[in-house]
């Protein structure tokens, strides 16, 4: 059984990609993703991984090269962050629509302007509807595990969708954490060989990315939507198999001290661990507080969310992005929408915090819990409140 070793999370992510034995890596360095691709470049240069490392001139090209590689039957990986994800935006949609199982680590970063290299989820929310499977990691171990899992699920012939593994920039990418790296042989058992049913092959020519005039476009998009929703069973199967192989379990929605809770926090990404500290503090004061972590962001886990909040009276949703002029933070507006048709549902209060790398400490969660009770007593003014903004 491998032992945990102290390792920068970006390096651990690179090690996961090495263990997954990828064929092609095409990436453009951008803070805070840089250490992942620098490390991968070194791993390939040192001959530790038999892969093509393509130094592209932009993120748009990175995703384009991954598309071509994946279409030819190669296992392809890239990583990006913030503005880089924005620059590759066009190709992000193309890869999912063409059903190419590329895996991408997204080191969540705020979007300009003002220029910020620090973490929040505005980059994620800009690719929310792009048709990729998306999961959020909370710590270094989860980054490794979810990258390995992502290759298995994405490349499954019943799936064939790309996957984004989200990890918060700096808060995860640049910290050193204890990480268990699985044995190569176990990883090879866990991730079967990638076989696209119609790869680019001169012996068996096909047309990819064809023109879709109005008479067929709606049918194409319906097929894509049904296919993405139906990946859920393979996603769950992948996590079950992961647990059987490596002993760590994952779920679309993961909870903490939720069973008898009346008030629940809902988070995504690295702040989930911080939130447990605030939950424990509240529990010590006798308050029935629990935590819901959204692990699977796409396809959205409607059933699991509804099940997890059925006994909750007050649900506090933390967003790390603003939907400007919209119906509150993107996560809260989706949560509200998912719960709207329930006969009995919790009151949903939305806070926005942690923008552009502003720390979300346990005290911030304490404040949210206190503030949510005040708001709950008299109703929230507007759709959301931004925590910790100076007047």
């Amino acid at each position: 059984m491998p032992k945990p070793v102290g390792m920068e999370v970006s390096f651990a992510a690179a090690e996961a990609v090495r263990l997954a034995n990828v064929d092609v890596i095409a990436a453009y360095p951008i803070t805070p993703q840089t250490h992942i691709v620098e490390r991968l470049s070194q791993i390939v240069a040192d001959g530790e991984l038999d892969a093509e490392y393509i130094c592209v001139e932009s993120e748009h090209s990175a995703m384009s090269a991954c598309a071509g590689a994946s279409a030819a039957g190669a296992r392809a990986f890239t990583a990006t962050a913030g503005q880089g994800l924005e620059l590759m935006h066009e190709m992000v949609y193309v890869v999912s629509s063409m059903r190419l199982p590329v895996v991408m680590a997204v080191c969540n970063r705020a979007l300009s302007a003002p220029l910020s290299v620090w973490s929040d989820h505005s980059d994620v929310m800009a690719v929310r509807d792009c048709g990729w499977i998306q999961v959020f990691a909370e710590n270094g171990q989860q980054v490794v595990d979810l990258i390995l899992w992502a290759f298995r699920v994405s490349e499954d012939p019943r799936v064939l969708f790309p996957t984004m593994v989200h990890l918060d920039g700096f808060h995860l990418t640049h910290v050193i954490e204890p990480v268990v790296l699985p044995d190569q042989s176990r990883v090879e058992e866990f991730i079967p060989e990638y076989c696209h049913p119609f790869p680019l092959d001169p012996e068996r020519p096909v047309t990819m990315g064809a023109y879709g005039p109005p008479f067929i476009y709606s049918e194409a998009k319906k097929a894509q939507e049904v296919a993405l929703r139906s990946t859920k069973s393979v996603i769950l199967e992948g996590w079950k198999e992961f647990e059987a192989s490596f002993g760590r379990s994952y779920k679309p929605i993961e909870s903490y001290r939720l069973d008898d809770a009346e008030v629940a926090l809902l988070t995504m990404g690295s702040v989930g661990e911080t939130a447990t500290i605030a939950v424990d503090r509240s529990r010590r004061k006798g308050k029935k507080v629990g935590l819901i972590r959204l692990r699977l962001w796409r396809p959205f886990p409607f059933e699991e969310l509804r099940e997890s909040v059925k006994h909750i009276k007050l649900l506090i949703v933390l967003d790390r992005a603003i939907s400007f002029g919209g119906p509150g933070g993107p996560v809260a507006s989706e949560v509200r929408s998912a719960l709207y048709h329930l006969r009995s549902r919790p009151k949903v209060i939305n806070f926005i915090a942690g923008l552009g790398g502003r720390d979300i400490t346990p005290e911030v969660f304490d404040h949210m819990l206190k503030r949510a009770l005040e708001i709950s007593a008299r109703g929230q003014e507007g759709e959301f409140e931004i925590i910790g903004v100076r007047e």
Partner: protein
Amino acid sequence: MSGKKEKPLGWQDLEVGYIVTQAGSASQYKTGDWRSQRPLWDHDKCIKCGICYIFCPDICIVQTQEGYFDADLFYCKGCGICARECLTGAVQMVEEEE
């Protein structure tokens, strides 16, 4: 993805990623219904030079057995390039409804 087949494809008929497995299937796509004008050849003026055939961007102009030219209206989009390029003014564009 065919415009010529009798029963149009439903969403469950599409291959994964909208891959087209049949080679040359674009030939089944009817572009003729984009047309609002169609070319007409005046055989008295036509010198059978083939300029219209060369310039047609859809390669939809065909030569008849007598050596004259005509457009395959399944594909002809009515762009009018043949009429514009014709050296003798033998090609005229006429409104579809006429």
